[in-house]
């Protein structure tokens, strides 16, 4: 068994970020519930935040922290508006399945 390094290299953090992003894309593609699709988008945003902060550590500047703070703010605004849209869609259609909400298609 190879010896564990005493400190995790930066690439481990970036690989974790890539894994979480791909999981978010998978949830976005495969899930049918509109709320779960929305949560997958939040997972992707979190993965990108992790790589912002990892690069910020590597460069020794805190600009990445500022950017991930802005990402958090935008995600909060997006969650408020998106969940209001979901509420309105449910009020009009009585469904949360994204296959049935297709009146803009074609």
């Amino acid at each position, binding site marked *: 068994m190879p010896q564990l390094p005493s400190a995790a290299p930066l*690439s481990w953090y970036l690989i974790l970020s*890539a894994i979480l992003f791909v999981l978010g894309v998978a949830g976005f593609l495969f899930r049918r519930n509109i709320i779960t699709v929305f949560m997958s988008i*939040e997972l992707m945003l979190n993965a990108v*935040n992790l790589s912002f902060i990892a690069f910020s550590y590597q460069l020794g500047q805190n600009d990445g922290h500022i950017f991930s*703070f802005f990402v958090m*703010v935008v995600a909060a605004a997006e969650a408020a*508006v998106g969940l209001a849209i979901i509420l309105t869609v449910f009020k009009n259609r009585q469904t949360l399945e994204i296959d049935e909400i297709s009146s803009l298609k074609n």
Partner: protein
Amino acid sequence: MDAILFLIFAGIAVICGLNLVLQKHPISSALSLVGVMGSLAVLYLLLGGEFISMAQLIVYAGAIMVLFIFVIMLLNAGTERPSRRRLWAQYAGVPLLAAMLAIAFYIIQRALPPSPGVHFGAFQHGNPFDIGIKLFENYVLPFEVTSLLILIAIIGAIVLARKEIN
């Protein structure tokens, strides 16, 4: 020690992320997402981001996820039904995502210079003081634009969710 902490919380994050994608009930997915966000907050702390770690816990794991769970309970969302459509995404999706992950691994391994590793405490600019200095000296305009964005989001949410009164 840092590597062990990283492995523990990265494992929790990946398991919770997988659980988010695989669970059929939205409330299970939401709780898995809370797990992902909590372990990411610990990883931010390992990387020296004290402010951003606390903001992650309060804003994401606190406020946003409470909003999600509140909407799930309000709409009484149940287990989702498997759909028979979207065969293309069902079959081509997993290999394409695996290819994307492999390309990301390759690029990360090739492009990064060899680094000494992430030591807890080596990054000293993540405290609220330094973040505030940077935010209000270099990033004042984006900060103000963000406040406008939040105002628009508040108005939009109220307009969308209001009850029709005749």
